[in-house]
């Protein structure tokens, strides 16, 4: 039977199931096949907060959303066009996101009384007409999977049923013409040591694919052509991996061994896990006894002449504040990666938010300024990490790198850079006396950075500490004038970081009098919304900040040149406060604090209302 092929410019698919159903795996496999096909894409995993919530319950639902297109796209998509629901709980938890008229593919085998009850359904939604607004496709995935895997030597029936996620992957792969070899090769590799499981997964995947091709249920399938892209080699990457690779690249470029000291905390633990795999690059990871120790150990490593990095999230940043303050006083390089999550306190650990900006900028006692860098997209975490290291090493200062849960978990295609084009980072260790017959640890260079003399260097022994230091010599000083001078010197040094920043890139249209100014992970949603506003005839410019402290030198002039400045943020309005305070500009705030990223549609509306 030949089926119709329809072309689609862009599609959003959401896979949802119980956390034991392997939805993240299906999503990742579908993503890789999509990437290899050459579509532009963006993904968003949505994990349950509980590790092992009771099977079949709403709390245990895990989902993965992918947006792919034949043009460049910027977000994982607001509303899915297709929802795959592996059980009633997954349907209930995710139906609200599906577009009206969208396709709903369910594993009807799982809609028994028990599962319906666990999900809180009184009647079977597949039967009661409540899904009439959608294109409902009922597929007995478990039955078909078990049938497809019959006769495989040594396969237990439980293992056979578990392969139903691969059946779903096969079916969706057929629907959107994804290359099968990418997934099949992955299965071959992954289960090489378990022949029965390998055979079952391959059989389930092929059964799903063939079901699409032959079953009468699905009349059409779709083609989403490759998106035009800059020439180069690409891979799909999430923010966690990009951050890790950026830190490793900075280590190789600087010659400084990378020393990550961290305490487990969601969602930053993933960075600890990722970096722990890279001993081949001399990366040392240490799981400290607490957040404070994690920062202190990293700072000790920096004193020893290594690249000290600590990573955390939420309450962990509160705990590190004291050590970060010490790093400000010691003027040693230290990178603190804060993967922001919803607060206050424990808040919603698996949900995203951008509410640590003011904490990063001001969250220490005393006058203790430090540079703050924020990543804007999953792949951009790579550059942001290198930039954080560059600033830390060049200026001998702690630097906070802000990412967030959304960036950490989302993925997008990344055009691989040439290693030779990455920034040079020179630790420029002090090796000689810098004053008549001695060494002054606080004698600064033209950027106001102090010398970094590491233990083992003869003749440069020195003592530094949290007590206020005399200018130049670093000796303890309570002199009033000296304290004022040192306070101003530390601030001036951090301010100098802005001199390295390139001019702010503004995406302009002719005649725009309104600027949308963002920072961090909202880049994609803002850019997509701005595009839509422009398509509707609205004239609006867009700029996005990567250096948050100090602010770029041309920002004041830029924001003053517009009739209106709109600042969308996933907090109660933090950057907007800074912009208003720094530049006396009546900037307008758009905020959201739901633990979710901005949707393009809601930002589009918010911008339009303010034009």
């Amino acid at each position, binding site marked *: 039977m030949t089926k119709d092929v329809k072309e689609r410019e862009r599609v959003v698919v959401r896979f949802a199931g119980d956390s034991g159903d392997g939805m993240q795996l299906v999503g990742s496999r579908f993503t890789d096949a999509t990437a290899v096909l050459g579509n532009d894409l963006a993904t968003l995993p949505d994990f349950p907060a509980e590790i092992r919530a009771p099977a079949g319950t709403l709390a245990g639902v895990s989902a993965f959303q992918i947006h792919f297109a034949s043009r460049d796209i910027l977000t994982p998509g607001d509303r899915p066009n297709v929802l795959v629901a592996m059980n009633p709980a997954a349907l209930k938890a995710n139906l609200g996101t599906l577009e009206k008229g969208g396709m709903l593919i369910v594993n009807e085998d799982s809609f028994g009384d028990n599962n319906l009850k666990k999900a809180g359904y009184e009647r079977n939604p597949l039967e009661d007409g409540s899904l009439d607004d959608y294109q409902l496709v009922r597929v007995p995935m478990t039955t078909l999977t078990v049938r497809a895997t019959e006769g495989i030597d040594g396969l237990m029936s439980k293992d056979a049923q578990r392969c139903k996620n691969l059946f779903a992957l096969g079916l969706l792969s057929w629907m959107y013409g994804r290359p099968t070899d990418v997934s099949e090769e992955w299965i071959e590799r992954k289960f090489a040591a378990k022949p029965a499981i390998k055979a079952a997964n391959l059989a389930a995947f092929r059964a799903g694919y063939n079901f699409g091709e032959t079953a009468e249920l699905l009349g059409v399938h779709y083609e989403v052509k490759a998106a035009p892209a800059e020439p*180069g080699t*690409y891979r799909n990457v999430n923010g966690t991996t990009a951050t890790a690779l950026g830190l490793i690249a900075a280590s190789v470029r600087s010659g400084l061994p990378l020393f990550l000291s961290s305490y487990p905390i969601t969602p930053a633990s993933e960075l600890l896990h990722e970096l722990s795999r890279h001993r081949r690059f001399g990366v040392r990871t240490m799981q400290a006894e607490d957040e404070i120790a994690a920062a202190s150990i990293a*700072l000790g490593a920096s004193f020893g002449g290594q690249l000290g990095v600590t990573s955390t999230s939420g309450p962990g940043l509160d705990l590190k504040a004291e050590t970060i303050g010490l790093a400000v006083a010691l003027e040693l390089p230290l990178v603190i990666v804060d993967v922001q999550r919803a607060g206050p306190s424990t808040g919603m650990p698996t949900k995203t938010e951008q509410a640590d900006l003011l904490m990063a900028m001001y969250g220490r006692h005393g006058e203790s300024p430090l540079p703050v860098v924020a990543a804007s997209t999953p792949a951009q975490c790579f550059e942001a990490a290198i930039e954080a290291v560059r600033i830390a090493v060049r200026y001998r200062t702690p630097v906070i790198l802000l990412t967030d849960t959304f960036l950490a978990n989302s993925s997008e295609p990344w055009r691989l850079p040439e290693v030779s084009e990455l920034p040079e980072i020179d630790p420029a260790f002090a090796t000689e006396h810098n004053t008549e017959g001695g060494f002054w640890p606080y004698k600064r260079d033209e950027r106001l950075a102090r010398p970094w003399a590491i*233990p*083992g260097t003869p003749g440069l*022994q020195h003592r530094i500490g949290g007590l206020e230091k005399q200018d130049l010599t670093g000796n303890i000083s309570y002199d009033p004038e000296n304290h004022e001078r040192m306070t101003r010197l530390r601030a001036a040094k951090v301010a100098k970081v802005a001199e390295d920043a390139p001019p702010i890139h503004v995406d302009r249209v002719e005649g725009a009098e309104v600027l949308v100014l963002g920072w961090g992970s909202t880049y994609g949603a803002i850019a997509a919304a701005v595009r839509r506003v422009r398509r509707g005839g609205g004239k609006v410019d867009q700029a996005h900040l990567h250096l948050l402290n100090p602010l770029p030198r041309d920002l004041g002039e830029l924001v003053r040149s517009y009739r209106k400045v709109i600042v969308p943020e996933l907090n109660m309005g933090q950057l907007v406060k800074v912009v208003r305070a720094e530049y006396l500009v009546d900037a307008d705030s758009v905020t959201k604090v739901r633990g979710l990223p901005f949707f393009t549609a809601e930002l589009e509306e918010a911008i339009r209302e303010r034009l």
Partner: protein
Amino acid sequence: MPDVKVNGANGGSPLPTLTKKDFSSDQETRWCPGCGDYAILATVQSVLPELGVPPERTVFVSGIGCAGRFVYYVDTYGIHGIHGRAPAIATGIAVSRPDLSVWVVTGDGDALSIGGNHLIHALRRNVPLRILLFNNQIYGLTKGQYSPTSEQGKITKSTPFGSQDHPFNPIALALGAEASFVARTVDVDRGHVAEVLRAAAAHRGSAFVEIYQNCNVFNDGAFEPVREKGVREANQIRLEHGKPIRFGREGERGVARGADGGLEIVEVAEVGEDALLVHDAKRPDPSLAFELAHLAERPTGPTPIGVFRAVERPVYAEELGRELAEAHRRADAEQLAELLRSGDTWTVPAA
């Protein structure tokens, strides 16, 4: 990083050119006149030149409190850190730079109250640190509040009706954290301090040394029975590995195992020399050291000093450090490019 040769605290030979002066900074020492810290500083400065580690390979890290100032007075590399965190900062230094000899100077409030967590974890990991805990049983720098080693009922500014807290026994705490080297000494007893410091310096892994230190302003006389000439001869129980535990002006008293299985103080004349317990600091199980730690809950009478425990166990990440250093040296641009390319990649050709 410059190419560094491993020159451990214990392995190197004495450098004949080094003297106390090489480890003395030009900073004026500023503790209260009569403070026990002066004696400790002088002994440390006189022992360091013997250890075969030049000043540039020696690092002192301290926390907050009177003891914290120590780092400014030794002409080595040093960090005066934040309250309680010295063991963590020092861990970062020692782990990243195994070629250095790293010392921590801390106090009873710093190490046992605000920094208790870092202390026990450094000890259990067996990070190569020499941790000197100056115990004066009081908060000195904040002008006289009770500390985690002050006796219950202690009357201070913050406890005018007497403290309610049961004190820590620092030796027992270190043993509980599985410290591989645990010792105690007394500030003014310079010969004994030097001996203990040498043993600590020679130890591989964490060496924990409690130093009874008199605060003559806020807690004068706290250690008088084991510190003051004329009485200390009767009360110091000097532990020596492999020797019977006996003490007193004439060695007339000793420690033996009692009928109930616990340790007790005995008259040698009554029980005979053979009944005395022979000290074994190298026993793999810490139970004897723990019993000795509890022989005197407070330094108010006969109190053991010296090395309670000195055992060999793996030093934190020693082998791994060598592997990582080698891997880092080999990592180059080509290897980095290969890492970036790992996983599924695809190529968009130039149009």
